[in-house]
């Protein structure tokens, strides 16, 4: 029995939440559905941990779906990079779900809650599937499973604010255009190579050499995934979607969905197209890199002027995606490592910040910054979590934000691109400005009279503090994340170097 489970771990990773999802929908009561979802998420996390442990020393697991041999059958291929992302996604779900119990009970009516948890599990299924699969078309299918359930999850925010509906609609239109671009790209790769298996694609693209079809495929994939990960200027869906979704949903998708899209980009850029593909290198350096830097500044400046806390954090997410793309576009080992570390660090930090925003919504009924005056005295624990995660977002030493910015600056300096390094540090100053605005309002301004705000309930506070504490823990003991990120970067580069040389 145990051996059978062990042999089928990669499949279980996706199947567990997928099977639990429809059962949740028929359970009829919010608490029952939550219990089942929680059980599924705990098991999913356990599977992720064991996959991570197996791959940590550089092993690659190749799992044949339905026992069809790759490249014809669908292969689930787990190396250190996916195992790391799987761990991040299922770990974040593990923190969000206890939080969602109270938060969702407050924001969504009782009869919709089972459906909510079922959509949540489907979203998790999609995200894990995208990460674990080694088949290009399978990535598209899972991407759409996660996206469709995300649209539905965002639309559930309509009970509080009807603008969630238009936000979900606009996200649906842009997300579908993105996914369809991605499919066109895959179709072009298939025309050139006749295969869909990622490892096989990489080999055959090298044999085939450069061609205009391949270039078009690359561009379509870049734009399609760019839409999904809110690459500036394809980010227009993000601020509304994050602002009007229920708080638990915002925290979950902000921490995972864009990260998984970054993973897909990394996988295609480096495993499929290869590190030394000239057209790609030129595109990354001359298009993605400037856009990433513009995003770091433009989105941060816009964030400074937002009145809604969730909206401010949403713009900050666009800026943070800029950091990840910058690391990727530097095309060096340290740069890739910075991207992978930041993927984890931003998931933890932004997850905690959005959960704090949800606590404020729970206690004060709104996330508008001007209504948070003096809330630091009424809700000391929640606000302290905000400060902790906020410091990490800025990138202060002893927090995870510092670790990723350190490697990012290091990567820029390795190439002697000191202006880029200076820009990275300058954009961190903007983060200080918008985080300080909230801290100042929360602590230094007097509370409005006659307003009673109680500390958030323990079920919400504990997960929030869990993530905030992680952002300090992994900032102090960065060895585990940096080792995993470094190995992931090495794996990405060495695999593609062998091919093109």
């Amino acid at each position, binding site marked *: 029995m145990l051996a059978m489970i062990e042999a089928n771990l990669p499949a279980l990773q996706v199947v567990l939440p997928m099977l639990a999802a429809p059962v949740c929908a028929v359970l009829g009561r919010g608490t029952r559905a939550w219990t089942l979802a929680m059980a599924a998420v705990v098991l999913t996390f356990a599977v992720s941990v064991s996959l991570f442990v197996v791959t940590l020393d550089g092993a690659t697991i190749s799992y044949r779906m339905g026992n069809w041999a790759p490249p014809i059958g669908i292969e689930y291929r787990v190396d250190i990079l996916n195992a790391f992302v799987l761990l991040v996604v299922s770990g974040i779900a593990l923190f969000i779900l206890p939080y969602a119990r109270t938060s969702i009970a407050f924001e969504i009516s009782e009869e919709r809650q089972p459906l909510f948890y079922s959509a949540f599990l489907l979203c998790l299924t999609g995200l894990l599937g995208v990460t674990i699969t080694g088949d290009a*078309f399978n990535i*598209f*299918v899972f991407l*759409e499973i996660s996206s*469709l359930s995300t*649209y*539905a999850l965002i*639309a559930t925010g*309509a009970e509080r604010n*009807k*603008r969630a*509906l*238009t936000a*979900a*609609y606009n996200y*649906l*239109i842009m997300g*579908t*255009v993105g*996914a*369809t671009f991605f*499919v*066109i790209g895959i*179709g072009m790769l*298939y*025309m050139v190579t006749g295969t*869909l298996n990622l490892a096989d694609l990489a080999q055959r693209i090298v044999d085939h050499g450069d061609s205009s079809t391949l270039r078009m495929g690359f561009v379509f994939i870049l734009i399609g995934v760019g839409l999904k990960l809110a690459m500036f200027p394809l980010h227009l869906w993000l601020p509304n979607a994050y602002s009007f979704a229920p708080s638990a949903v915002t925290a979950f998708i902000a921490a995972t969905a864009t990260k998984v899209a970054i993973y897909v980009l990394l996988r295609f850029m480096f495993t499929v197209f290869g590190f030394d593909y000239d057209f790609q290198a030129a595109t990354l350096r001359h298009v993605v890199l400037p856009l990433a830097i513009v995003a770091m500044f433009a989105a941060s400046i816009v964030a400074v002027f937002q009145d809604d806390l969730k909206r401010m954090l949403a713009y900050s997410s666009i800026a943070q995606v800029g950091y990840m793309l910058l690391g990727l576009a530097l095309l060096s080992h340290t740069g890739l490592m910075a991207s992978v570390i930041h993927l984890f660090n931003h998931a933890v930090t932004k997850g905690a910040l959005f959960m704090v925003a949800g606590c404020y919504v729970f206690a004060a009924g709104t996330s*508008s910054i*001007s209504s948070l005056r003096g809330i630091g005295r009424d809700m000391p624990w929640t606000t302290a979590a905000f400060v902790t995660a906020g410091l990490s977002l800025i990138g202060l030493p002893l927090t995870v934000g510092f670790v990723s910015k350190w490697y990012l600056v290091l990567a820029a300096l390795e190439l002697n691109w000191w202006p880029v390094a200076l820009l990275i540090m300058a954009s961190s100053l903007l983060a200080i400005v918008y985080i300080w605005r909230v801290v100042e309002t929360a602590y230094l301004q007097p509370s409005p009279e006659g307003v009673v705000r109680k500390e958030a309930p323990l079920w919400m506070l504990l997960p929030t503090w869990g993530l905030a504490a992680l952002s300090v823990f992994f900032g102090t003991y960065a060895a585990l994340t940096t080792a995993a990120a470094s190995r992931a970067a090495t794996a990405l580069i060495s695999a593609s170097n062998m091919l093109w040389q």
Partner: protein
Amino acid sequence: MEELLFDLGFVLTHYNYWMFVVLMMTGLYITVSYGNLVKKIVGLNIFQTAVFLFYVSTGKIVGGTAPILTDDPAAVYSNPLPHVLILTAIVVGIATTALALALVVRIRETYGTVEEDEIIALEHEMDAAIGVER
């Protein structure tokens, strides 16, 4: 030189790809430019259908028949894989359309309109109302 500028033979033999491009751009244009939420979905459907046609085209082999297993070893058949992929993509497309239409129904119920500019005007009013409260 003239041949390079306009190779009629190339254009004609690849007419299915040209149709794909035309359909795809039509769909994308409708999605982006129309203000009616239902028409946007129609545009999205045309856009997706174009991609289905593109995939089906790539599987075509000259003189190929339907890919059915026969005893004839010399049988030429078209590549079934892109066709199968597109079956999946069609399912995804239907799910997307259904969800989009469901959202439009909800939007119609709460906003009373499916015209984007009217919705934006209503949302600006909501923003302004929040500003007055403060």
